[in-house]
């Protein structure tokens, strides 16, 4: 599992949903080495501001074409600069990093995939892998629960429903699919259809992940959650990307997991959820010009 630097090149960028861009990068070595659920650190711009690389999941990994795709939301300075990169722009990639998803064993049964907003990014490649080689009987046994604030932020049907998988959409404002939280939709559908998932995969905002984790623990479904943290290095050197680890017992001292080397994929049981602190979700608007 060697990590490396690769000079990639922007092939094209497209705004595929509101504030959501799909970036195709020519990076043959990365495309040959990466696995679903892993991530890489992208230098969005030469120079000192922004200074640090930004972590992104692999949205699609296309080894034959030598291409990796990123699906990202513009939330701040780095992603704003990234959105302005024209085809041909060279960008430095550092990766592949982290553990990645584990695919279920052959014929393990239906799987549940929960995506919140931009959290769909790594799950798209996961779904492709499940379809290609995972232990899922029929495409329809992949149950994707996909929530967002509003319909305009969701990926279109041709990228998801057309794969033959079961898709359940929800929006906070009710503009598309079920009106409410994706985790409520998950509870309902699983009960109605009496689904017995063999595995749960999820990526999305922290609040969603928390509810997904609780659900998975309650229902004793093995889970693989893709979690985030602010990162400086991505390779285990700065120790900045800490998340509170579950305690062996109540008396034991706090200790931390590191998203870049222990994750970014974690089981719901390994995190001490109530100890997580953030300074808030990314803002819905940002002041930058």
């Amino acid at each position, binding site marked *: 599992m*060697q*990590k*490396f*630097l690769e000079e990639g090149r922007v092939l094209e960028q497209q705004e595929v949903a509101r504030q959501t861009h799909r970036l195709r990068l020519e990076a043959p070595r990365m495309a040959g080495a990466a696995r679903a659920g892993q991530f890489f650190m992208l*230098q969005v711009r030469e120079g*000192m*501001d*922004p*200074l*640090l*690389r930004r972590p992104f999941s692999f949205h699609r990994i296309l080894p034959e074409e030598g291409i990796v795709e990123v699906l990202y939301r513009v939330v701040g300075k780095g992603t704003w600069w990234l959105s302005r990169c024209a085809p041909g722009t060279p960008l430095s990639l*550092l990766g592949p990093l982290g553990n990645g998803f584990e695919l279920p064993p052959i014929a393990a049964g239906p799987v549940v995939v929960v995506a919140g907003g931009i959290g769909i990014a790594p799950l798209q490649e996961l779904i492709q892998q499940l379809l290609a080689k995972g232990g899922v009987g029929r495409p329809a046994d992949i149950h994707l629960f996909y929530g967002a604030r509003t319909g305009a932020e969701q990926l279109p049907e041709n990228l998801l429903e057309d794969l033959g998988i079961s898709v359940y959409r929800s929006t906070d404002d009710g503009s598309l699919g079920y009106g409410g939280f994706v985790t409520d939709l998950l509870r309902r559908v699983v009960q109605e259809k009496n689904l017995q998932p063999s595995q749960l995969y999820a990526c999305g905002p922290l609040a969603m992940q928390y509810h997904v984790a609780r659900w998975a623990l309650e229902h004793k479904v093995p889970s693989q959650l893709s979690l985030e*943290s*602010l*990162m*400086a*290095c991505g*390779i*285990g*050197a*700065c*120790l*900045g*990307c*800490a*998340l*509170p680890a579950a305690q062996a017992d109540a008396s034991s*001292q*706090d*200790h*931390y997991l590191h998203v870049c080397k222990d994750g970014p994929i974690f089981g719901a049981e390994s995190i001490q959820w109530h*100890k*997580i*602190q*953030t*300074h*808030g979700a990314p*803002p819905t608007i940002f*002041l930058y010009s």
Partner: protein
Amino acid sequence: MAQNPDARGASHDLSVQLGPLRLKNPVMVASGTFGYGEEYADFLDLTALGAVVVKGISLAPRPGNPPPRLVETPAGMINAIGLENVGVDAFLQSKLPYLRDRQVPVIVNIFGNLLEEYAELAARLEGVPGIVALEINISCPNVKSGGMIFGTEPSMAARVVEAVRRATTLPLITKLTPNVTHIGEIAKAAVGAGSDMLSCINTVAAMAVDIFSRRPKLANVFGGLSGPAIKPIALRCTYEVLQAVDCPVIGIGGIANATDALEFLLLGARAVQVGTANFVHPAVTREIIEGMRRFLEVERLGGVEEYIGSLNRECLFPFAEIACEMTDLP
């Protein structure tokens, strides 16, 4: 000087004498930015470095601060890692052997909350093969005197250095914090107490807030600023320290390329440490070393020692000199 292409390596010599240490070149990596070395092995040949300063070690393992621990700022970052580390036992057992087996000179950065902890740590590291020096991080709160930072008061800094000095024969580097009024005073106190060398600077005390959530961006509220943003502060500190004491000094702060590194050497620093830049470009130190070699070639210098401390204190060219040059123009 005669240009002998075959003797390129020898005629552009990067090796430096740093107190009792002979280094292959003046480029080291800074504590806390390079893990325990192994993290970077995929990206560069660790043996090419002058030395590796490992993440700060304490007697017992420390979990570190709750997250968020990091925030990026213009040309820099603020961290409040809280000195998370595996503790000295695990360091000696599972971290040090990797670097020792590869013959990379290791400098161990040590810290404690009590004088006795510093001393005990130093004693534990005495005589351990592979360790070439200790770097004393005095930017820690002294729990006995109400959490005051050891490194902000000359007499307290001196007591830490004395305690470590008594406990070990290893060469000692004291790492100075810039968050003081007179860094030269702390430098004098450390050298007076037996520090063989000094390194400066540690991170600059800083803070960031979020206008939407109306909260500090770090769980710890305060953190330490590092990266290119602090280089001018680091240069000023290095200059003041060099004026205050007569011992080898290692320059640290915002170094991201060979030019930055050479600026510290020009002042008189005998080596440099590269920190935050490793996060952006894991192989940046290799580029810095190569860049230095090219600089020596272009400047026709036999070795980097010739360049160290060659700063001309007069800030600008005297006008007469420029005028003379102008009259030579056709």
